């Protein structure tokens, strides 16, 4: 025990380390942002031999990152499996559509609408959560899945003059900033100006990230994690688990509303068909791929997944498809003749997911805790009721032998708290 204590850095030292980390992280974030801001000016000069994403792809990646950050609050922080996250996305997008389109002839400015969308998504998170959050684990998962199916269906099935039915709602007013003088009359942040739309979504992403980071490093964040770890114990420590879980649902949903309001305005059109189950699954996959509970993981996961989906596979396909097609033509194998690589994106995702889970289940950028849970320090062989005691058992054995795993034993990159 004494050995372990002596090897530990002082708390002050640790905090100092944390400060350095923050500084480094900020420099990295600033660098990435600058790259994002500059990208529209030079990306067309990138030779086609390099699979660089175009602006639309970047925008899709960014709003998926926002969605993933939101779901990460629910799944990663609070440990609640939500399979119907797309519902809140739909609600956010529809709110934006109702409030700034000819549909009801309401044309509020997007800068107000986005906050209404956030509020309504959060509210629906509470409405769904209130009766169902006492369900445990997989039951909650299926209820949320059901909710995710119901919401778009209701938008689709209700009469057209209420929700636009299957035709959706269009055109939705894009976010604009009025301008005067030589620059024209306004700046429009939609798909008619991808550069501005990119800046808007990047700003939203940075804001969302900042929100999540602040929440995680607070009393609330600790309460979420405590619930994730052991709900009964958390309640016995004075945490109002119901309210805290509701808050996770509401705040997670609100980020989804954020992304929804952006997507509606960016695409200037929304359709109930866009909000399928596969979106919920894709976002969940992003969160897990990135590393549950990890904010950087959620962002990197979203960018990686959508990059592969939208850019990389097509790029590879340029080289792979033609030879395969000609082989198909000469051999008469229809499958090869019509082979288009990117149309098998979900096949490729499927393989990636399975391989990833088998090889690296903690995700691309896991939090320190998750990594510890899954590899190396303190891995219990069995997930049985006795796990905690088991691990404690073996740890005791080690510690008494002077082999306790301390923070210093971890490789340097593991020392920071992914924060």
């Amino acid at each position, binding site marked *: 025990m004494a050995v372990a204590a002596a090897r530990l850095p002082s708390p002050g030292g640790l905090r100092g380390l944390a400060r350095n980390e923050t500084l480094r992280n900020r420099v990295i974030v600033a660098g990435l942002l600058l790259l994002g801001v500059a990208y529209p000016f030079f990306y067309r000069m990138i030779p086609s031999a390099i699979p660089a994403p175009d602006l639309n792809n970047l925008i899709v990646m960014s709003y998926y990152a926002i969605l993933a950050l939101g779901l990460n609050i629910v*799944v990663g922080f609070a440990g609640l*499996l939500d399979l119907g996250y797309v519902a809140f996305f739909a609600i956010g997008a529809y709110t934006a559509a109702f409030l700034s389109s000819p549909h009801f002839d309401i044309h509020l400015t997007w800068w107000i609408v986005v906050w209404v969308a956030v509020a309504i998504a959060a509210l629906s998170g509470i409405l769904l959560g209130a*009766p*169902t959050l*006492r*369900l*445990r*684990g*997989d*039951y909650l*998962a*299926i*209820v949320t*899945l*059901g*909710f995710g*199916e*119901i919401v778009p*269906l*209701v938008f*689709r*099935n209700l009469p057209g003059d209420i929700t636009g039915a299957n035709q959706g709602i269009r055109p939705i007013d894009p976010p604009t900033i009025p301008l005067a003088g030589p620059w024209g009359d306004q700046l429009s942040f939609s798909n008619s100006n991808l550069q501005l739309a990119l800046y808007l979504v990047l700003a939203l992403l940075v804001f969302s990230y900042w929100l999540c980071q602040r929440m995680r490093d607070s009393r609330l964040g600790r309460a979420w994690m405590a619930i994730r770890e052991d709900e009964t114990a958390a309640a016995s420590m004075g945490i109002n688990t119901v309210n805290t879980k509701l808050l996770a649902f509401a705040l997670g949903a609100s980020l989804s509303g954020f992304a929804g309001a952006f997507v509606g305005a960016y695409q200037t059109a929304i359709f109930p068909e866009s909000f399928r*189950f596969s979106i919920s*699954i894709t976002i*969940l*996959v992003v969160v*897990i791929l990135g590393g*549950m509970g990890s904010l950087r993981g959620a962002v990197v996961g979203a960018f990686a997944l959508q990059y592969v989906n939208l850019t990389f596979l097509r790029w590879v396909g340029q080289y792979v498809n033609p030879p395969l097609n000609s082989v198909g033509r000469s051999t008469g194998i229809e*499958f090869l003749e019509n082979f288009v690589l990117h149309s*098998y994106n*979900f*096949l490729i*995702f*499927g*393989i*990636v*997911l*399975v391989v*990833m*889970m*088998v090889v690296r*289940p903690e995700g691309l950028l896991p939090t320190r805790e998750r990594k510890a*849970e*899954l590899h190396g320090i303190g891995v*219990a*062989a*069995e*997930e*049985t009721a006795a796990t905690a005691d088991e691990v404690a058992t073996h740890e005791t054995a080690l510690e008494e032998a002077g082999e306790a795993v301390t923070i210093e034993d971890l490789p340097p990159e593991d020392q920071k708290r992914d924060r």
Partner: protein
Amino acid sequence: MDLEQFAVILSIGLFNGLIVALVAIGYTLVYGIIELINFAHGDVFMLGTLLTYFGLVAILPGFGVEASLISALALIPFIMVITAVINASIERVAYRPLRNAPRLAPLISAIGMSFILQNVGIILLGPSPKAVPSVLPNDPLIVMPGGRTLISLNEVVVGAVTIPLLLALAYFVTSTRQGKAMRATAQDREAAGLMGINVNRTISQTFLIGGALAGAAGFVVALFLGQAWWFFGFPFGLLAFTSAVLGGIGNITGAALGGIVLGLVKSISDFYIEARWTNVIVFSILIIVLVFRPTGLLGAKQAEGA
């Protein structure tokens, strides 16, 4: 209200429900033994419809056998064996290495398998639904006084395939040595190992059984609905999975009950409301049931320690 019509609708719902029950049991068995929502299960069922299609249009003619109800029925064991092996292989490849990983890891891997199987379906069958040769006559069998058919021959075949399978499964699980081993493994895997139960083999067995049932369900659907389609896994899987949860996931009787209940709900909603509202109704019922009975209709109450 037209009672005869209502009876017809109930009968349609019942037979639909039996098929759903077969798929639902696959979910519940796997959930019971390794607490995993096996997302790929619906797609294994889909492969069952595919195999039936190929069996009838390619394999049987290949052997010079005419596709008929009898020759089709002879396909069942082969289809069940193939889907069983596929399901068990999925477990071997995608779930077993994750036996000790956190809960979400096998779930994601299951989603991955589901994507893979769907694409296999697309590659094998193409993107559009394909009509399965109709070998299942729908001649009326029980006709009501008003002249409407209550039960037709094809429904009887559905019942004749599904009900014995359900009963055989119930017998297997409650009364055979292997069935008990399955239950023991589900309740405490490590202790089961200490009893001399080969845990890995028992889990494989569970997947084999689930896969075989899915294959049988795929066969029945392919014949009964007359289509094979790569997309089938999703709507059927969703319905079956919902049934399993509705009945209390992990509980075999519950899954069967849930399947039949949802079959009835679906046919009633399709007829009396509108098909496009059916999923809304199904999921609303699910949510309401779970809010009032958080572990499903027949789910075990939370164990209360004293």
